[in-house]
């Protein structure tokens, strides 16, 4: 299966976003997703990045990007100023998990979150074999990983429940980026390497 821009979660995220929507991409990297959404869906997009090289790359890509640290909040953004706030493959790198999720749903109507699932069977097997997992979705060695939170689909959903967040949609992907279907909750937690969620909260 081929994916837009080589990122299966980008295909799912793109499908959730309607033309003309306002999109905030947190940890937008070089702006690839936003550029895709602007080019194909005519969204109005803004990215947030902490890394100098990514700021330069995103500006080169013609993306509106703001240098900042998600952990310190999103003060520069007004309440409910975006339709979607995207956090792709970044939640596991932030310390203030709850704070970031709350801020996303303060500034946006909907949060779109993707993250690697640490309970994916290959990851578990790797740990059972005595080594920390390294995979397509966890492409780092333990000593150079930006990841600081290690959690599973079920962990994340438990947090959503505790925070009163509503899961509107969920897609679970295997390491090849294929959708995992026809599985119960526990099986999904073993078969999914990457998960993508659409979240809202009651207002």
């Amino acid at each position, binding site marked *: 299966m081929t994916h837009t821009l080589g990122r299966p979660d980008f295909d799912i995220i793109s499908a959730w976003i309607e033309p003309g929507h306002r999109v905030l991409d947190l940890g937008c990297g070089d702006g690839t997703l936003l550029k895709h959404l602007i080019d194909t869906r005519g969204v*109005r997009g*803004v990215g947030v990045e902490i890394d*100098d090289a990514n*700021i*330069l790359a*995103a*500006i*080169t890509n*013609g*993306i*509106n*990007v*703001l*240098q*900042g640290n998600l952990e310190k909040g999103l*003060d*520069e*953004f*007004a309440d409910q*100023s975006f339709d979607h706030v995207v956090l792709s493959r970044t939640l596991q790198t932030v310390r203030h998990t709850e704070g970031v999720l709350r801020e996303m749903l303060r500034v946006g109507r909907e949060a779109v979150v993707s993250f690697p699932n640490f309970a994916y069977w290959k990851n578990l097997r790797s740990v059972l074999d005595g080594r920390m997992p390294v995979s397509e979705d966890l492409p780092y060695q333990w000593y150079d990983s930006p990841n600081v939170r290690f959690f599973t689909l079920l962990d994340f959903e438990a947090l959503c429940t505790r925070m009163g967040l509503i899961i509107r949609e969920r897609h679970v992907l295997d390491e090849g980026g294929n959708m995992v279907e026809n599985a119960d909750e526990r099986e999904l937690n073993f078969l999914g390497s990457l998960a993508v969620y659409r979240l809202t909260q009651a207002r």
Partner: protein
Amino acid sequence: MPGQSVGVVTSQRAHFDQPLHLRSGGVLPAYDLVYETYGTLNTAKSNAILVCHALSGHHHVAGHYADAPNNIGWWDNIIGPGRPLDTDKFFIVGLNNPGGCHGSTGPSSINPATGKPWGADFPIVAVSDWVEAQARLADRLGIDAWAAIIGGSLGGMQAMRWTISQPERVRNAIIIASAPKLSAQNIAFNDVARQAILTDPDFHGGNYYEHNTRPVRGLRLARMLGHITYLSDDQMGEKFGRELRNGSFGFDFDVEFEVESYLRYQGDKFAGYFDANTYLLMTKALDYFDPARLDGGDLTKAMARSNPNTGFLIASFTTDWRFTPARSKEIVAALLACNRNVSYAEIDLNFGHDSFLMDDAHYHGVVAAYLRNIKL
């Protein structure tokens, strides 16, 4: 530094007969502006960039003069073929603002009404007055809309003011190390600088030209104070530390620490060529700048007067404590609130407020990348 210098440049002068009615209520009945241009204006006249200068800047932004090869423009490192403000693509304009002391009409110019230098009679000029003067120069050059207006510090304030006062005439604004208005601390620094000048016995109420003297001591102190605030503590520590010129304490009030020697040298150099009345005017323009004032302090409302198609690049420096990153972020937040296209870079450079003049690969890379995306 990649790219090349623009090489030999010449200054030009434009005379304006139409009176300039100023924010302060004063009027400049007629005035001259000196300016320089680099690169070639294209036939569509769509490739012009205006460079606005800060407190002590002027029209000589890049290159050098044929008869003065060491007189290099104050922002030479960013302008030229292959440099961020690429003269192969853009036509760059720099001018000396009214009230200046580098050739444009200012306090040291002759007041036609009296035949004597303006001195204390020169009216107070505001950032919005400079924008008006710059717009008239644009008219003269046949430039309807600037591809970009760029400035650091007080220069950034002019770029910002343009987007509000002349929204149809600015397609991009690059606002570096600036602020939407000065803080109380900033005004306080400016006032100490002004007091140094105003209380110098050689100031003569601003009419020192007639007394064939200049308030050199006051201007020197003003510059020394200003200079401290343009540098970072770290940078001063690295550069001077507690180094002593003679290796041991002298137990007197002569120059002992290297930092004293450096500051005095900077003060002397500046006081040797800059006009004290211009210094006073520039600091007042800084203090008064507050484009949100007439909107009840609501910066979003002020920035909403800008053209929705105008793009903004805001940049700040981590070690700038005179115009901190937080101040730049106020501009960013206002622009976001009115749905403007804005990018913001917080550049990690060690040179305090003066970082905006430095040749840094990442900083210049960001400006270059932004400008490369401008379609002419």
